[in-house]
């Protein structure tokens, strides 16, 4: 028994285990990739921040735009809307929750709160998307 478990035997066993793992993984890789190849044909992909695409032409020459929201913007719980908007509207710089800009984007959970905010900061709506994101301009 002692002679059976030699260093060379352990090396061969290690190689065999690695080979088995690689073989099983390769089988699953082939299976998953085949499914993905079929699924990809029917998948529709949306660019991040696509809901803000309509604002691009209106603010393309503006350097800073305020982005006002009542949503949770913590790193753990935010829904990516702000960063998606930043990607879509780059190189416009979005200033999170700072109303001291002429142009503002409002991304609120409901229209009532958005409307109340607009009244408070004395801004008018320029454009609103189907997803209820608002582009507003402060009145002089």
């Amino acid at each position: 028994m002692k002679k059976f478990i030699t260093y060379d035997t352990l090396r061969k066993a290690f190689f065999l285990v690695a080979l088995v793992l690689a073989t099983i993984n390769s089988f699953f890789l082939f299976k998953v990739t085949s499914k993905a190849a079929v699924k990809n044909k029917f998948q529709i992909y949306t660019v991040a921040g696509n809901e803000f695409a309509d604002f691009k032409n209106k603010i393309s020459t503006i350097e800073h735009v305020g982005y006002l929201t009542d949503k949770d913007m913590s790193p753990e719980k935010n829904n990516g809307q702000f960063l998606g908007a930043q990607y879509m509207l780059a190189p416009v710089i979005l200033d999170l929750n700072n109303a001291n800009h002429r142009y503002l984007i409002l991304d609120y959970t409901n229209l009532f709160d958005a409307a109340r905010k607009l009244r408070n900061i004395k801004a008018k709506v320029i454009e609103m998307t189907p997803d209820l994101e608002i582009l507003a301009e402060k009145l002089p």
Partner: protein
Amino acid sequence: MTISLPYVFSILAGYLLVETALRNTPKVSFFLKLFLAIGAGLGLSSLITFLSFLFCNGYNRSFIVFANLSCIFFLLIINSKQLKEVLSGHAVRFDPWQFFYGIFLLLLVPFILIRANEHPLGEWDSWALWNMKAKFLTLSGPLWQSVFKDLHWHTQPDYPLLLPCMNIWGWIFTPGDFFSAPFLTAALFAFACAGLLFAGLLQFTDRKIAFLGCALLFALPAYLPLATSQYADIVLAYYLLAGFISFVGAVQEKSKGFGFLFGFFLGLMSFTKNEGLTMAFILAVLCISYFLFEKTAGRQANSSVIRLIFCGLIITLPVSIYFKLCLAPPNHDILLSAAPRMSSFFNLEGCSIIFENIALQLSHPRWYHLWPLVFCGFLLDWRRYFKKEIRALFLFLILYVLVIFFIYLTTINFSLAWRLSRTLSRILFYLSPAVIFLMFYVYASGKSAPEKKL
């Protein structure tokens, strides 16, 4: 086709650079040179692109193209004699095994493209950070430095710009298309990393181990999704692996050329992510110390290698240093400026959360028993991990893990558990190619006389 043109130029520049470096190192396989060339060339193009932003104070397409083509022209002049030999057929030897290796590697490509097409626009960090920065830099004109000052800290303005500049170079001939270049960059690095592991193991171990190592990495459930997500992690994984292979090459082949490439890749690694800077520092100290104190090769030989390491570092590292000192703001995620005690996780509870998450991650199905296999490999040959050049690489892994541990303990602005759940898998991902290489390299050194087939 136009979208692939920058990549062709970069790979050509990279190959010429690698050829120049390894001119006096015989018996280096074509595949190793090719896969080293991919990262070297793209890294070089990225650095040239970044430097063009500094010289031209913004995106200047003509200058970027001119600078890259000038670099290729310069490298062609240096390699003119070797090129004449290749074109006349003198330097080419046909080996049937090379053909077989080529077929094996080409078989990986459809898998990469199909899995990359599952998320052709990348994942969260790709559009929130890397691709956003690339788009911002391209479109912002002379206000390009706002990417460091005015963007919200969620976009990590302190992160280095190797990947964004690579993507900017990638879309240089297709203005307005901000999607194809990041897709291609990720797919190319996914291919290059697996290919580099194969070629590195082929060079320094044997054929069977090379196939096994490559298959083990490539078929990991975690590999393709993370590699093609358009994050900088695959780039970091590649440069770390290239650093390991170049260091082993410098030792095994007693090659100054590999020493130069080692320094070159460390500099590129430092400009990839903040973690890359830490890795480059630890790896440089350990590997240069190895050459300083190692006696078998001779003092003069080791001094030459150290000199060439610094030559490689001088080309790539200054960009990182300039970026960190003059452009990038401080990092918001960790507490280094004040006492670590001020982090709410710098205590036993923080350690416990970290260990718990590490255990969960190591046993996750996405790794499919890779880490228990690595542990078994370590137990099988544990003495060898503390000998010769392997000691430097093993110590690097230990020290880096300790640094990561400390960074997690000094977490601020995030929940530690959330941060671990988001980042630990990616840390394991970018370490895995280098760990697999080291594991099989040590395994092969256990044989009395490893059979080298190229």
